[in-house]
């Protein structure tokens, strides 16, 4: 079953083409990593897929619903963990979870919150204000919040950016635990993150989706020794 179907997806900002006619299908339960250098169009693509901005041209179908016609219904089944920590700073961790449960009008919110507290081991920080938490904890809470509505589609925008090795490994473990249950679109600058976590990887260069495949397929295609070299070869057109 296809979870996301994108056809000729384009976004122009005045005379600049940020995303240039992307075609892509992502299967249900797949973890798809979107890679690219800065300004390649990854975040713009994620913003269009999550309904934050409208495409200039092209179509997005999510779980058989057209983004143009069923935006509000689609928003009920997706969630996003943005690049920067997206939590209310003066609210405690529990209040943040309750707030987002209210945003999605979750019926059995206490049960869902308890579930997330256990899954993310949030007990020790539950009553602490979000702004007092370390970067690692804030990111963990941010990802926990993004699961409050049991999303079918989850966008993780650079989830481990700026975290130390241990915090990163902890988050990898959590993301691995979600694989297969939720369709995840992950953007990252860390090659090993994309290689270890994703089922398939798409590489964007100057607004174009130039390659899609597993890490092994991309290494084979570029005749390189490892995935980082494969990425560099694709991103630079073999010039480096």
């Amino acid at each position, binding site marked *: 079953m296809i979870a996301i179907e994108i056809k000729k997806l384009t976004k122009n900002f005045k005379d600049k083409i940020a995303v240039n006619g992307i075609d892509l299908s992502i299967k249900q339960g797949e973890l798809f990593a979107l890679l690219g250098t800065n300004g390649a169009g990854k975040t713009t693509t994620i913003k269009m897929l*999550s309904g934050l901005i409208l495409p200039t041209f092209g179509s997005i179908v999510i779980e058989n619903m057209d983004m143009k016609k069923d935006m509000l219904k689609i*928003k*009920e089944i997706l969630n996003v963990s943005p*690049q920067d*920590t997206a939590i209310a700073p*003066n609210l405690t961790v529990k209040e943040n979870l309750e707030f987002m449960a209210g945003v*999605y009008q979750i019926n059995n919110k206490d049960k869902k919150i308890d579930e997330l507290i256990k899954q993310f081991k949030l007990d020790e920080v539950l009553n602490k204000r979000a702004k007092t938490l370390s970067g690692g904890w804030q990111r963990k809470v941010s990802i926990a*919040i993004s699961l409050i509505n049991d999303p079918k589609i989850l966008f993780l925008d650079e989830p481990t950016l700026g975290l130390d090795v241990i915090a990163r490994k902890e988050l990898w473990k959590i993301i691995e635990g979600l694989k297969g249950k939720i369709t995840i679109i992950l953007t990252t600058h860390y090659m090993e993150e994309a290689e270890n976590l994703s089922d398939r990887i798409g590489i964007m260069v100057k607004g174009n989706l130039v390659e899609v495949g597993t890490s092994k397929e991309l290494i084979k295609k570029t005749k390189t020794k490892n995935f980082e070299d494969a990425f560099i070869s694709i991103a630079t057109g073999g010039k480096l």
Partner: protein
Amino acid sequence: MRMINFAKRNFKELIRDPLSLIFEIALPIFLLFIFQQIKIPEDLYKLENFTPGIIIFGFSFITLFTSTLVAKDRGSSLLIRLGTSPMKSSDYILGYILSLIPIIIIQDSLFFIVACLLGLNVSINIIFTILISIVVSILFIAFGILVGSLVSEKASGGVGSVIVQLACFTSGMYFSMDLIGKGFAKVCELLPFESALIIIKGVLNSNYDIISTRNIIVFISYTIIILISSVIVFKNKMISDNK
């Protein structure tokens, strides 16, 4: 209700900021107390006239802290997260407005408790004044949403301070407008702060004759225009911030 949920969150954010409580409540009460100790022989400084001025002064800080909250939300990724949720523009705007109503009621109640302790007559008019001031506060909240939607968190403090000063000097809470000159008085008549003050003063003193048709037209026009502008600008900014 999503707007109530958002309002609860905004209320917590606001009351947990000690600076906001100091400026919105403690500073106006301090001024009310101090000016009554000085005993200035001017009608403007009599409790029945100065308490409405203090209410408007307190509201100007509501504008300042609303603008900071909105600008802070825009600057953080929280609004990106909320932008991908099923929340609508009306949920945001009403959520911001509703979160401030309890603060307005607390503010007014404390101002009147202090004013009564200082000698203001206790009457049913106080209840009517609190009710009308809730309506008046919508203008100040809408100003805050508009400023917070237009400028960054850092700039919101500065722009908010300009509104505090404008409210002080053009409302007539400290001095009669005619003292500065007819030109200045005309400008004040065209701004909403003097009209807002006169409406509150008229209700508190049961002196409805001082509220002119111009006061009502100026106040309602500003409230409607600023409220509609804040909705449009907030909505557009949410889209443009995400580009």
